[in-house]
């Protein structure tokens, strides 16, 4: 049980009166890659955004229920501290256009006014970019702005930026849906390497991706968590009819 890093119990979320996440209970273990899949509007992205408390930034958005990081309730913690511990990578790569690559990686420190010695900051930049498999490609242009990077490289820069904060968990919101196939596979390769140090929760529209990269998969449908199981099991012999229908393409 000490291996459970994120757990939810009867967790609900609304947009105004719209009940989009219904009584979700799940236990996610450390150092695993979890895929979250389901048709459009099933609540998977909303649930993801509740974990790092981005959901509440939308006016009228509310949440209720238990959602824990280790033993602490996320919704009683300081939201800023939650986001230090749980990082996020978005669908469209969004490096800061006015910052250099170096500053982008340590943006979490600089923008927050977290004082770090130069030597240590250099170290963080190199380590994060290496973990994101980007170091060799940019090590000579660290002080240039990242506008010349390709989509896949920009996304890896965003991953480096999230890693630099040394989070426990990294959330991915359809991280490769805006990328070409080559960039996609370079990012998927990363998931495999990152799970040694982090827990990854990846919302994806792409079933094949879920099957490729994850240890366990969660299937959301109409706001409910329908099934959560080992990926191999989920894709060969799902327990729920709805999961079966989704996997075989009866609806998307």
């Amino acid at each position, binding site marked *: 049980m000490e291996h459970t890093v994120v757990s939810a119990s009867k967790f609900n979320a609304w947009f105004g009166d719209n009940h989009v996440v219904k009584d979700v209970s799940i236990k996610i273990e450390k150092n695993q890659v979890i895929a979250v899949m389901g048709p459009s509007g099933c609540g998977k992205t909303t649930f993801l955004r509740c974990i*790092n408390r*981005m959901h509440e*930034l939308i*006016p009228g958005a509310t949440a209720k229920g238990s959602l824990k990081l280790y033993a602490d309730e996320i919704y009683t913690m300081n939201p*800023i*501290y*939650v*986001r*230090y511990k749980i*990082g*996020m990578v*978005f669908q*469209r790569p*969004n*490096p*800061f*256009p*006015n910052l250099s690559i170096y500053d982008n990686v340590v*943006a*979490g420190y600089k*923008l*927050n*006014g977290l004082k770090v010695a130069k030597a240590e900051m250099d170290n963080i930049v190199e380590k994060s970019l290496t973990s994101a498999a980007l170091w060799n490609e940019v090590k000579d242009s660290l002080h240039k702005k990242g506008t010349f990077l390709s989509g896949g490289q920009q996304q890896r820069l*965003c991953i480096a*930026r*999230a890693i630099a*904060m040394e989070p426990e968990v990294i959330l991915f919101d359809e991280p490769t849906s805006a990328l070409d196939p080559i960039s996609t596979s370079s990012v998927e390769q990363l998931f495999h390497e990152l799970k040694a140090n982090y827990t990854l929760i990846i919302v994806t529209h792409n079933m094949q991706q879920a099957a490729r990269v994850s240890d366990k998969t969660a299937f959301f449908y109409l706001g409910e968590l329908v099934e959560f199981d080992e990926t191999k099991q989920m894709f060969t012999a799902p327990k729920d009819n709805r999961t079966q229908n989704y996997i075989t393409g009866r609806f998307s």
Partner: protein
Amino acid sequence: MDARIGIRNTKSVLFKGLIIFLAFIITIPLIIILLYIIKQGVLQVNWHFLTNVPAPVGETGGGISNALVGSLIIVTMSSIIAIPVGILAGIYLSENPHTKLAYYSGLCVDILQGVPSIVVGIVVYFWVVKPLGTFSAISGSIALAIMMLPIVIRSTEQTLKLLPDTLKEAALSLGVPYHRVILKVIIPCGFAGILSGIMLSVARIAGETAPLLFTAFGNPYLSTAITKPMQSLPLLIFNYATSPYDDWHNLAWGASFILLMFVLLLNIFTKLITRKWNIQL
């Protein structure tokens, strides 16, 4: 049938000719005015002109140093007042577009944009000049600041609305608090648009006379005291142009030349900046 089509085509061509004529003929008055001001004014400008106060009636020579310094001080003070308020209000309007405050505040920005400048002068007279008991540069600056606000607010609001939401999201997800997201990410990314709004508003108020008539009032001497009357370029031009003395007319031409060059250069510079930075964004 062909004859009818021919007539219709001719009409169309004639109309186009008329439109082009009317559209371009209007550039003539502008060119005439600009050239005249330049012709009359450029000869007046020399070192002596820039560094001396106007000579008393009857004496030749003199300059407009009091107006130059005065304009500089008044415009700077107006900017110090209006820029922070304008940017912050613009941020609020772009970040919270659906609140009641945003609606009424936006309405007030529209109202302020249409208020005649002389009315602003009247009001600030009662707000500042009367209580202080004297005309003052600071009252002039307050009046001009009120006129700067709508321009700064609208350009800030529009610039920020064009920035993608993902920028804010990226920063927030790193645990950056809201105020730092705005101040260290959003504003730097919108810098070009905000800056051009500021420069346009400065160009606008640098040439305003009416709000200063009963606030800064004017001063024949060089003064840097902000709680006392102060001269400014537009005020000097107004007073000296309408006087009966040729020497004073010459001073007014020189001052007009300088004011015109400043306003035009600022406008051109603003256009260059928006063009250059927009390409990169």
